[in-house]
């Protein structure tokens, strides 16, 4: 059985113990200004490594605009 979470409203395969930091690696997100919310709750950058996401969670990783 495949478990799914949503990242930016798109499905991502989930596994037990998956952290926010893991999602950054899977998605190859390297932008410098990303706001992370799990089920609408803001997660601080220093907690990415220890924040575990659960099956069915709604994760938002909002890349902010930049540039002139």
């Amino acid at each position, binding site marked *: 059985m495949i478990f799914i979470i949503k990242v*930016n*409203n*798109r499905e991502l395969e989930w596994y037990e113990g998956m952290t926010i930091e893991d999602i950054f690696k899977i998605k*190859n*997100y*390297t*932008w*410098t*200004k990303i*706001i992370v919310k799990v089920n609408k709750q*803001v997660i601080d950058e220093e907690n990415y490594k220890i924040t575990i996401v659960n099956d069915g969670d709604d994760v*938002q*990783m*909002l*890349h*902010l*605009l*930049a*540039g*002139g």
Partner: protein
Amino acid sequence: MDINKLKEGRKLLKEFKYDLGSIEKGYTNRTLYVNISENKIESKEVTPLMKEKFIGGKGFGLYTLWHGTTPSTKWNDPENEIVISGGPVCGITQYPGAGKSLVCSISPMTDIPIDSNVGGYFGPYLKFSGWDALEVQGKAENDIVVFIDGDNGVVRIEEAPLEAVDSHVIAEQLTEMYAENEADKRNISVISAGTAAEHSRMGLLNFSFYDVRRKVQRFKQAGRGGIGTVFRDKKIKAIIIKFSNVKGDLNNAVDKAIINKAGLKLHKEMHYLDDKQNRMRQVGTAYSQEIMSAYDLLPVMNFQYGGHEDVKKISPDVFKNNYLTQGMADGCWYGCSMACAKTADGFELLTGPYKGQKVTVDGAEYETLAGCGSNCGIFDPRAILEINFYCDTYGIDTISYGTSMAFVMECYERKIINKEFTGGLELKFGNFEDSIEVLHQMSRGEGFGLILGQGVHRMKKIFAEKCGADPDFLFDIGMEQKGLEYSEYVSKESLAQQGGFGLTNKGPQHDEAWIIFMDMVNNQIPTFEDKAEALYYFPMFRTWFGLYGLCKLPWNDVTPANNKFTSEPAKIPEHVQNYLDVVYGVTGKKLNTTEMVRESERVYNFQRIFNIRLGKGLRANDKIPYRSAGPVTKEEYEARQERFDGQLKEILNYDVEGKTTEEKMAVLRKHRESQYEKLIDAVYKRRGWNSNGVPTIERLKDLGMDLPELIEVVKDMQ
């Protein structure tokens, strides 16, 4: 450099003396008109209507240009104008990024108005010298300079036969000539173009600011749309301004305390957060090079691809560690703690007329790195800096040059053009030596440089006529729209950004809307209505900076620590409030966010109607080259096959099994082109335009822009 000899060549054509006047709430309430055909100089009044509906900056530029020209004016007609205006906030030193001016003219590339924003000291000095705008009209018989003495209230037009044309030389000559001593050099700002601006359509203007630490004139560029070409066509070598008493309160602001408060808050953010965020103070706008590649957004080889493994060779740290000097005064106006104008000092040139000289290179900025680097397959930092330097001093827009050269290189590799046609130059991707020779040819006015200098729009026609190329294919791969070359982002996977480029007034330049992340990565604007709302709000909001004399970068290249807790973090609400406070502080005008956008919308619609007045500005003119929306060639498709196949299956329920690449490309293309048409419908509706892209009279009335001259243009097109 014998300054006395240069002076001996001068001949005074006109001298105009004026009262220095005063600045009240950010306005001098008059503009300076200089006609170089008739050698006429006069002061014009700024009317209440101008201030109410056009604000300043780009608004004043477009308004003045409209009234100085006719529906049949071409870029090289004497009546075409170059208008420079800062705006009411321009010149304050308490809030970062407040030294911008906007330059407007009818463009040699697009044949419609172009606006280009620029830093440097000229804009603020113009206001402090007594003028809200400078309007230059006419065409001189011989090379001239215009000198504005803001200390003594004198304007002069002089013939200047002996001065150089290339910017890094003439700026030094004129600074030396007009400054009384070393300390006085910071009081001089020079506008110049360059030799290649004389022989191409993509000429730019360099606006100087004197770097007291490096002891050299540095430049910021009004780059887009060929205003430098207009400048040299008018036989202007330079416009010089001198103002000697810069202070923080010259705008006679209504409430200095509120400006100071907003400024201090932003300075602190810059101090504490910039190193963790975009590192603007270390590497400038080039910080995003590798990141864009990782997201498949960096143009590679004429926008065919969005990333390349060699991008690490031109990463920001390569420049920082090997070329850019750190800890210097890199703000292009006083008080800007973002200080993103990075510089390579003591850079030794390997080619061209200045070979062997050690020079200061302003940059390279992101657009130059992407346009003249990865988009041309050049991943050598040294080569890019050399191209950057020569583009600047020759007066050439690095975006138009980079995108044009990338187009030429693809045509060369596809054997659409050959070595015979290029005069022996092997213009393959990555060939720095032969491609920079084209730049030198542009300066000398010879060879293939004359062709490249026409830009992509005209090269498509030339290659079809002279080389028998398929015009449809050239339309697909030639990254220009309205005659202007695309700036340097791959928009294939973001429908909203296709509109962000395609539904602009002046042509595909990212300064109206950069919403790729919102759309493609964040998936925040999934419906047509969502995208239309973004393509309403952001272009209007970003237009606003150009009305007041502000730089956009401090708005969104650093963000407050608490921004993540706001309801609309993409808009950076705290910074928007700062701007409302600053405008109140200078002008006494209390705006809210709705009124802020409406101010822009008035000028935005005016510009759209200006385009229509000149025969463009309609739906047909908003068509985009397919490469900006999807894969044109088999190689492009197959390089991202998994993605495209997946989209065909998921979005269109199309069975890709057993289908050829060509069959799949055709289905994808039909879908993407229809999506763009639907986007246009949604955006036009949101902006209050009819299905042909014409502003409705109802909308104009709602905005208070039902001016007789505008109604006259649109009344039969409703």
